[in-house]
């Protein structure tokens, strides 16, 4: 498996909880897209040939791009890289930036999966967290997408929002179920320092739900989603059968991926070494470097030592409910996982956090709640 990621660092306005680099000023968008095209050619020439199984337009807000841009980028991708005919091609969309024309363009460009940043079905909560759309925008665009031929649509939900109740969260899940969403990501809100929401919360303008309530949102939300037929396949991701995100699963399999665009990350095996590298996070450097015909890397690619590659494989694999395939581990490293981590497997199993069944090591529900703590057992003392 191999994935291609394209980063679009623009947003109409910044959400109050967001601490990512994104630009609300779209003036440089044209220059940025031109630079992206150049990077595609530079990377294609520099890196080993590879057929890609998935493509993901992420952001930021890729749907902010003007009509025509996504089709142009998709064409260029196909020109520089081999994209498998049955590839899963996803675009992230903000319900406030979509319209019928764009949706038809995406379909025509071969995009077959839509990931909508809904976050909440409650307009008051959407306002609190600074989203530009309202629930009605989402419904309208969702219907349009279905009409345009999208059969694989996901929505993001957040829980633990200021003023949110357990009932709000369960209601949102039920609403999405009734609309017929194929996939739901449910993220617990993290209030990052330096964001406007952080100021609101620490200043007392907003108050977060009690910790026990947030925990209930998580537990009862999970149970409800599973009752409704959305199987939890990763810590925050739920899907109807056959609709798990292949692109994201590839990250959790510690598979190879190439990131294009500002501050995007890549991982792949080059000349036998497992390498990670990232692009610069400065927009002007990115554009200038691509224009000069130099790959816009932030630093030299880093070779990941074998022991760390093993830990990454565990760290990512244990996010999945089905866990790490012991056969895949053996195939990749030529060693049994239980020979590499005998202590960790034993102590976590004793703790009731880890089970080994069906040829895999996986965390239990409780283990998943304490995944950080569980992973520490796999780090050297």
């Amino acid at each position, binding site marked *: 498996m191999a994935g291609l990621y394209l980063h679009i660092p623009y947003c109409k306005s910044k959400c109050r909880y967001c601490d990512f680099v994104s630009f609300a000023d779209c003036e440089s968008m044209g220059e940025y897209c031109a630079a992206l095209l150049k990077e595609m050619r530079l990377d294609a020439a520099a890196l080993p040939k590879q057929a890609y199984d998935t493509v993901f337009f992420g952001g930021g807000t890729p749907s902010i791009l003007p009509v025509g841009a996504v089709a142009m980028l998709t064409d260029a991708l196909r020109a520089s890289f081999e994209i498998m005919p049955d590839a899963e091609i996803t675009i992230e969309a903000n319900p406030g930036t979509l319209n019928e024309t764009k949706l038809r363009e995406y379909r025509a460009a071969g995009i077959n999966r839509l990931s909508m940043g809904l976050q909440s079905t409650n307009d008051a909560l959407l306002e609190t967290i600074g989203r530009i759309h309202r629930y009605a925008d989402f419904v309208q665009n969702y219907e349009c997408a279905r009409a345009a031929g999208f059969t694989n649509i996901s929505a993001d939900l957040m829980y633990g929002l200021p003023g949110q109740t357990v009932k709000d969260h369960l209601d949102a899940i039920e609403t999405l179920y009734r609309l017929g969403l194929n996939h739901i990501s449910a993220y617990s809100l993290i209030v990052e320092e330096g964001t406007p929401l952080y100021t609101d919360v620490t200043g007392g303008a907003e108050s977060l739900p009690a910790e*026990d309530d947030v*925990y209930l949102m998580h537990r009862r939300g999970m149970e409800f989603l599973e009752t409704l037929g959305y199987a939890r396949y990763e810590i*925050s991701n739920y899907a109807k059968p056959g609709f798990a995100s292949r692109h994201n699963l590839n990250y959790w399999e510690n598979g190879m991926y190439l990131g294009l665009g500002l501050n995007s990350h890549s991982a792949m095996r080059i000349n036998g070494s497992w390498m*990670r590298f990232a692009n610069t996070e400065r927009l002007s450097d990115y554009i200038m470097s691509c224009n000069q015909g130099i790959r816009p890397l932030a630093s030299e690619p880093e070779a990941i030592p074998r022991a760390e590659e093993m830990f990454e494989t565990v760290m990512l694999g244990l996010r999945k409910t089905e866990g790490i395939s012991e056969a895949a581990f053996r195939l990749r490293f030529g060693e049994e996982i239980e020979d590499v981590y005998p202590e960790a497997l034993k102590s976590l199993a004793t703790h009731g956090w880890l089970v080994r069944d069906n040829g895999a090591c996986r965390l239990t529900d409780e283990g998943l709640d304490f995944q950080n703590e569980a992973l*520490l057992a796999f780090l050297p003392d």
Partner: protein
Amino acid sequence: MAYSQDLIRNFCIIAHIDHGKSTLADRMMELTDTVALRDMEAQMLDTMDIERERGITIKATAVRMFYTHTDGKQYMFNLIDTPGHVDFTYEVSRALAACEGAVLVVDATQGIEAQTLANVYLALDNGLEIVPVINKIDLPSADAEHAIREIEDVIGLPAADAPRISAKLGTNVNEVLAQIVELVPPPAGRADVPLRALIFDSIYDNYKGALSYVRVKEGTVRAGMRIRSMATGREFEVTEVGVFTPALKPTDELSTGEVGYVSASIKSVSETKVGDTITDADNPAAEPLPGYKQANPMVFCGIYPADGADYESLRDALDKLVLNDASLSYEPETSMALGFGFRCGFLGLLHMEIIQERLEREFDLDLVTTAPSVIYKVRKNDGTELTVDNPSNLPDPSEIQSMEEPMVEAHIMTPSDYVGAIMELCQEKRGVFRDMKYIEENRVNILYELPLNEIIYDFFDQLKSRSRGYASFDYELKEYVQSDLVKLDFLLNGDMCDALSTIVHRDKAYAKGRAVAEKLQEVIPRQQFEIPIQAAIGGKIIARETVRAVRKDVLAKCYGGDITRKKKLLEKQKEGKKRMRQIGTVSLPSEAFMSVLRIN
């Protein structure tokens, strides 16, 4: 050729912290061309980083200067720079015993402080001639006449002729030099009798081994002589004698009245103890000089490496420090909570702080220290007696008939505005009021008897904060008295944590137990289960707090761009966890052990 005894002046400088002792010494060295101006740096005699930063002197040092007086004669000055802190009173008294005079520096803006007074009395006890000097006359708030009146009233010394100086600017420092010649008597002592030299300090030199700093009282010492320690009877061959310029400079001999160092291939400073007398092994003196005593530690605490793997490094560091500090004691101990470490004994609180700081800075160690303890005397029901400096070693309460704790006599000098606040503090600390004297209209000297175990926590900080920094404090150890003491234990999730135990007075146990439990509740990170914290006396629980369980510890999102960062976060989390101590099922950070100390 021996320097004429009449032309020698041996003196020290007595001053409160920040009153300008080191600056005055710097100026004297400049005026006598002892140190070339270009080599001058501030606080020339304080060579340790901690001394310079804190503005204090920890080790005694000395310097020889030559001064040409108005009578045209050249005098040899030996200035002995002494520590001024109460912890080092014994060292100070020996340094004073090596002098005939003391320059008393009083800050014209502040007047006399408690420590200064204590040291002046010490100097008078040793028969020293006092040369009062009023410093900082350049400051706008200086009131030299007031400071002079205070010296006359409080100490009873005539001070009308005291030089009014500014050590900082160098103003009138010449007068001080002149008065040293005129007021300080030359050393007595006969040159034609067997050698008797007083050791007033010792240091460890990487090249020369342990060096004894001596004042030759009688006779002469020179290289090649066999000398004998009159305290231990051990004999050494002198390899070198010399003087302080202030750098070490070898000379042929040190004769009667002179101050210098003796090197005799002595391995550790513990073999050349402060207060000891050295004599000629082949022609020994009959009696040692008076005043030798062993300096005994008064305050104890456990010192453990934050990372158990650093135990060996900690031992090496202590081995090195003790080469230079014979008053530091340590022996290995183990704690269930903290693993392998050392029980260390100190002269006092400052001494303890300095050693901890030096271990951390000079040896780059991360330490966990337990609450300080004093030595308690325990009488058991079966009639046996024992001393306890570690709460863990206290016998079961059912075996104890009675306990005694050490008391100190504390002198506190303060502006009268703060008398109420200070008496309240002393009362809280189980103090017994003894006396109060007005030194002048608005300055008071208060005398309290206090248990040492109350002083070793936060007494000094409290005194400073309740008097806005104006009160000063000095104490000396008195006798042991019987006291109703109990051992206060803390249980975490039902498991006792030995490193948190302390011995306290029964009346204070309840409040202290509750305060520490609250503090622990703040500093113990939440874990996956609820952690009850209990304070207990014997088997009885007197306070309880709970650290709530954490419900989730997982990163909500982890996609392609998050992997490297996530890995780093986990490595950091692991590092933090490694530094935690495991008490039964509970992980405890180092701060938890300090929390017992920082309770008001």
